[in-house]
């Protein structure tokens, strides 16, 4: 019924696929969240036209399923890269671009959209008086933002960012469709020859559960660490 030998044999192969999943998750989270913070600031400052473009972008990203975004990135980016190459006079071999690049591009744009909403609500949740207090002691706008507002907003945003990151790790499983050999795709590949589906997906499930558990713990920990930034404003 359950082939234990197969599980033992293929465990190393699945473990070897973990780094590619984590690479996709971390790189798209880091770049995406920085973009997201930028979008949040632009929309908060209500800069004409740019803010509207950002709003449409966020709405689109939130409305379109990840699989479709991945397919669009997978089929559109090579054309864009190729055409860009021609415009600067180089013929780029788009088939040499690893598919993980397309997956990361789609994931990071998705993260930018979702995190911008989290940052926006976190920035609005910081008391207005904090900004005024910072000005009153002679800080410039940048200083006030970086030293006073961001730490507090970040502390508010952390639980939601944790949820977002967990969703991202789960979302990387969809990169399977554009040919990235991450955990799910590797499990599928291993299962095919002898149809050991149940064994390989049980292993996949365990791997994802362990990763989720660790991420949850890490975010819970940083939430507690960052509580000190919230101390002043909970009154």
């Amino acid at each position: 019924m359950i082939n234990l030998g197969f599980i033992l044999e293929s465990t190393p192969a699945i473990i070897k696929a973990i780094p590619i999943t984590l690479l996709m998750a971390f790189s798209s989270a880091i770049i995406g969240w920085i973009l997201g913070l930028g979008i949040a600031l632009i929309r908060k400052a209500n800069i004409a036209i740019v803010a509207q473009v950002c709003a449409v972008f966020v709405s689109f990203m939130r409305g379109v399923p990840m699989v479709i975004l991945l397919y669009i990135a997978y089929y559109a980016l090579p054309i864009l890269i190729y055409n860009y190459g021609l415009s600067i006079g180089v013929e780029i071999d788009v088939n040499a671009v690893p598919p993980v690049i397309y997956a990361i591009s789609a994931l990071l744009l998705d993260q930018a959209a979702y995190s911008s909403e989290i940052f926006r609500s976190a920035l609005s949740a910081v008391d207005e008086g904090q900004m005024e207090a910072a000005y009153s002691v002679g800080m410039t706008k940048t200083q006030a933002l970086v030293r006073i507002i961001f730490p507090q907003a970040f502390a508010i945003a952390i639980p939601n960012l944790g949820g977002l990151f967990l969703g991202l790790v789960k979302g990387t499983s969809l990169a399977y469709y554009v040919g990235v050999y991450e955990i799910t795709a590797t499990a599928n590949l291993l299962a095919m020859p002898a149809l050991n589906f149940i064994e390989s997906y049980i292993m996949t499930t365990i791997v994802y559960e362990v990763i989720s558990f660790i991420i949850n713990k890490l975010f819970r920990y940083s939430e507690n660490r960052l509580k000190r930034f919230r101390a002043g404003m909970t009154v």
Partner: protein
Amino acid sequence: MENTYDLSTVPSYIPKILKALPVTAEILIFSLLFGLLLGALVTMGALGKNKMVRIISNGYISFMRGIPTLVLIFLLYLGLPQLMVGIGIDLSAITKTKYIIACLSLGSSANMAEMMRASYLAVDKGQREAAYSVGMKGFTAFRRIILPQAVGIAIPTLGNNIIMLFKETSLAFTVGVIDLLGKARAISSASYGTNRLEVYIATGIVFWIICILMEYISKAVEKVYTKGRKQATS
């Protein structure tokens, strides 16, 4: 061939893709119903008095939140029948659509349970005490005082959860169901993939528009429902 694409043909694919909307709607409605039902049961367990049931319910929620929907689909659709054949049960009679509904219900039930728990706990404790003080019994107090307020709190999250669930129905094509994305793939392969980019963009637009509509409805429902109740919550 890599370079041939014509974005002006995108709108022409939208009506063709929309033909598959009933399939997606069926999956969405049934998964939503079962997800809510399952979520309610799990919430009752998680907030109940029995310690064992509480541990199981919370374990279920964190398990379902930790597993990607795609893996859940593979586990149930490809894995479960093998396991069942091993103990002599044949699952081949179950249709693909039913498998997808089962997977999405399980996956969304955890989010639904979290939503229900959070909104239940967000209702002020004094409300229950006030209900008791005017002589209501446990269940009556829940049904007439707590539930209406909790529903009001839950509406925005419910709207979000439904949108998320709708987006996840796009995974139905994985097992070969011809839903919106399945239809798009069929259209694309009928022309040997030459128009795949246009078709996927058209599908994206279909999903986008439906999501905007859903968001709009969710906001409208929230407005209507919370009208006149605001005094009670503040």
